[in-house]
């Protein structure tokens, strides 16, 4: 119920305000979009999820970068130990390099956790991306099918146009000298039909790649 409500909010309201739990939303979205593969609205549903995931990814990357840059600097890790540093200062000594081991362990642990979260975000993003690619391919295939249909109808129309053009010429009430010729009507009809049919056949074979 909650998941359905989340998906409703996701698809009907601006994204970054509402997407907070990613895994169930992405899973539910994948199922819904798969069922509506030929609907252009499917693409629109994926975009907010992807945007929000990318925003989340940037935040996690920022956190990870912050921890790794701290881990790379021994001086900063030593400086984090304020109590030890002030005690050492009172005794007029400096903290040894290995004194930051405890801080390093803590930071490494959370850097690992963030890294794991980042991997999961990458996985979800790649799932959303592949679904988006699949939807785009489906829509391309659907568009190509419509274009092909349109082309067939045009070829058919041109083929018929040959016959109608000849009929138009001979239908004019103008003396052409062939009005009383024996068998000329059958020849003209058969010729125009053959020409139209030939054009149709040639186009069809060209489209199917036999030529």
């Amino acid at each position, binding site marked *: 119920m909650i998941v359905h409500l989340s998906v409703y909010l996701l698809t009907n309201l601006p994204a970054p305000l509402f997407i907070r*739990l990613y895994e169930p939303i992405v899973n539910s979205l994948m199922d819904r979009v798969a069922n509506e593969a030929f609907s252009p609205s499917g693409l629109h549903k994926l975009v907010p999820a992807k945007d929000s995931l990318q925003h989340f990814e940037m935040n996690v990357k920022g956190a990870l970068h912050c921890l790794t840059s701290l881990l790379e600097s021994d001086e900063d890790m030593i400086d984090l130990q304020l109590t030890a540093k002030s005690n050492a200062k009172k005794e007029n000594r400096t903290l040894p390099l290995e004194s930051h081991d405890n801080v390093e362990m803590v*930071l490494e642990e959370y850097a690992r956790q963030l890294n794991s979260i980042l991997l999961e975000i990458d996985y979800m993003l790649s799932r959303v991306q592949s679904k988006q690619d699949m939807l785009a391919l489906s829509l391309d295939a659907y568009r190509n099918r419509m274009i092909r249909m349109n082309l067939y109808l045009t070829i058919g129309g041109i083929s018929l146009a040959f016959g109608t053009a000849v009929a138009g010429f001979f239908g004019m009430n103008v003396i052409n000298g062939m009005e009383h010729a024996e068998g000329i009507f059958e020849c003209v009809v058969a010729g125009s039909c053959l020409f139209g049919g030939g054009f149709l056949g040639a186009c069809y074979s060209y489209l199917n790649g036999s030529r």
Partner: protein
Amino acid sequence: MATSITSSTQQSLKDDILPTTIPPSDINDTYAVAIITPNSDNKNIKLSNQRLSIQQIVEQLPGTHARDFFSLSLTSLGDASRKRKMIRQHYSVRNSIHPWFILPRESEIVMSFGCVRAIINQESAMIFDAHKPTIKQQAMRISDQLMRKDRFAFRDGEIIFHNNGKNGKQQTNKTPFEIDMVEQCIASVCTMYSRRIRYV
């Protein structure tokens, strides 16, 4: 001006952003701050919500630089009120990326980690933007975690116990407050992110 409260999940989160005691002219220079202070025995943690001016904050934290406050980009109570009004009147998508840093200074640690913006020293920690309910909740969680008698963590395949009790059998060397605080701030953000992604 200051309202002292003991850390507990039972605490009410309801708190007016604009207190009636602060004159409107001072609101632009007043910041809501959650202050976490360990008691002298380090067994109890006191959490208090205060409204401090930038001058009072700087006086309490002498080791910080002025540019640290620019980096923290704190929101005063006046700005918070204006933002709330703006959001009510015009919808705007929150697409800002948090600044991330942990800067050790002479006697303080300045950190902005996710939604937590804090300045930590040996005796106390200030968590800023405490006018937001989420920050208040985070501050309460952090103080609760700091107060727990028995804690353990997995590190490098080892179970490390932090036992603050008198009768604890396994007791590690006591972690200084500032390190504990930094760890809890990072841990709270990691837990929040983990819950968002994994739905557990």
